[in-house]
């Protein structure tokens, strides 16, 4: 009888002790960005000899999987705009004059960041939590892509327990090959209750000695009409800026 009670106790206690990876991931999403927002980002590609190329993007996002990014600099890329609706991505180049479909593995900027990094939507929209474990002061979430259209088949995400913000993410191809590592740094208060890393650094075994950095600024909660996230609106994204 004692044994039965002990077993019952263990069974009842186990779910409470198990990590809820999905809940952690959901919190990571909201801690990184509000569901709808606008922001500025600077992307810096650094070559092995220290030479740099910089891009500045204005981005707006709505819901879990709608995001638009407009290039403000350099002049050679100014006016280019990219749109992502779930798994669909388009690039608008003013000289070409119409949006064309692009894929998540391509890169509109060159360097280590690809389109999926630049047009990142909520992790919960693209990944399921396969496993969640605890380390000293971090959680380790193993994420599996929901579909074959997601850029990385698997992610290993280390999440700071105190802030529930990611510190490192390793991105893997379906073959198991490590594609790149993202490192989240310089946690900063952006105002409006948004406190998150202001810098993401990345490197890749595929680009030896190259490095790319993404800097965040002016992250603000803002709601946008759905029509903004459509192909026909891409040439006019600039009009959203205040």
């Amino acid at each position, binding site marked *: 009888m004692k044994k039965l009670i002990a077993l019952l106790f263990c069974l009842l206690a186990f779910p409470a002790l198990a990590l809820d990876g999905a809940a952690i991931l959901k919190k990571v999403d909201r801690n990184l960005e509000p569901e709808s927002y606008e922001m500025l980002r600077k992307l810096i590609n650094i070559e092995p000899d220290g030479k740099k*190329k910089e891009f500045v993007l204005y981005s707006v996002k709505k819901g879990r999987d709608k995001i638009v990014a407009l290039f403000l600099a350099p002049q050679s890329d100014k006016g280019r705009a990219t749109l992502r609706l779930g798994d669909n991505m388009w690039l608008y180049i003013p000289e070409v004059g*119409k949006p064309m*479909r692009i894929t998540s593995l*391509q890169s509109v900027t060159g360097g280590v960041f690809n389109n999926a990094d630049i047009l990142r939507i909520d992790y919960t929209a693209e990944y399921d939590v396969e496993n969640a474990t605890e380390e000293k002061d971090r959680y380790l979430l193993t994420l599996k892509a929901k579909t074959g259209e997601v850029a990385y088949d698997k992610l290993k995400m280390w999440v700071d327990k105190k802030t529930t913000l990611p510190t490192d993410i390793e991105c893997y191809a379906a073959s198991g090959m490590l594609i790149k590592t993202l490192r989240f740094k310089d946690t900063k208060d952006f105002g409006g209750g948004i406190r998150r890393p202001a810098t993401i650094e990345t490197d890749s075994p595929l680009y030896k000695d190259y490095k790319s950095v993404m800097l965040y600024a002016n992250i603000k909660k803002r709601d946008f009409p*759905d*029509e903004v996230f459509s192909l026909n609106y891409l040439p006019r994204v600039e009009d959203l800026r205040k």
Partner: protein
Amino acid sequence: MKRALAGLACLLAATAWAEDFKFDAAEFDKQPFEFGGYLELKTDRSWLRRDGSFYKLNGLARDTLDRNTATLKLNAKYTQGIASLKLSAAAEQRRDQLISERSSRFDEAYVSFKPDPGLTVDIGKQALKWGKGYAWNPVGFVERMKDPNDVELAREGYTMLAADFIRNFADDGGDLKTVAFTPVLLPVGAQTNQDFGQPNHLNVAAKLYLLYRDTDIDFTWLGQGSRGSRFGIDFSRNLSSALEIHGEWARLQDVEQRRIDAAGNISSEVGDATSYLLGLRYLTENDTTWIAEYYRNGSGYTESQLTDFHRVVDSGNPALLARARQISPAYGRANAGERYLYLRASQKEPFDIVYFTPSITLIGNLADRSYSLSPELLYTGVTNLDLRLRATWLHGGEHSEFGEKQNARKLELMARYYF
């Protein structure tokens, strides 16, 4: 002392590194007036084909032709409330051993009103671009023809009144995510849009766009007016994170085709035509992008019709040559034939050289098996500077499309600086 110096050096290096990562967002505040553009310098050498029909028609008497071209492109935008004025102008100076000429034009000059994110009204000269094809757009009913050899080349627009109505249903969870409707009024008169077609017509066109089940679908239409009426459909869809497919289909009514037969008789025939295109874009694991398109040009010339034209030129008869010269713009236009293949492979950043993109493009006439082959090296590693080196070989048998062009080979170096 050495340690102190080393420490100082480390400190300075660390400061420099930290400075590199600064981001002053205020530098990018929105301005009501924006201005930009580029200056492009291009130098090219063409090796001419003395036995080519177009060499004879153009009356050239040399083996090579060296040309220098300078292009200044200016873009400006002024925004005030819901209205904005957009200007896009280009000035060009060309000089070779035969001619020196300059030209300037407004590619676009229009006012845009945006009372609501779901509604835009544009009045003025603008370049609408319809269709999903990379090299050709059979459904592009209200635009000037694209040059498949340089698909990003700026094209002059037409003066029109156009509107854009957008509705997005992405949050409804249904299969239909977006609907957009673009009606267009395009007048043709003695001073306006003369090269669009017959004068004294107010042409009506429209495009209906749907994002349905993750597929872009457009229905396009142009009513009877300066040109015969036409309608079409296009689509584009990603099949995976690395593969996109697209297509266009268009039915054109009352298309006029001017022909010359082997005896030198010029005739004109009006009929209906169907054009279509199927294509794909595929990114390999090694970062090679392949673009392949098959194009059926319903209003193009058959192989025997093209052969007749070249035979007339070959006849050497001055009277026949004059007739051929009269009709040569139709036969000499880009892709005047019926069936084409476009194939382009570009390798992103090979040998770990970032911003370096070598590519090779093949445009082939499937009927006469002639083709042009263009390897290209593009480097964009210097901020705001594009450098491109491109060579082109045109190959084909006697009386074939690419075998009768004026050039046999061409080498071109281009530098474009954006400001």
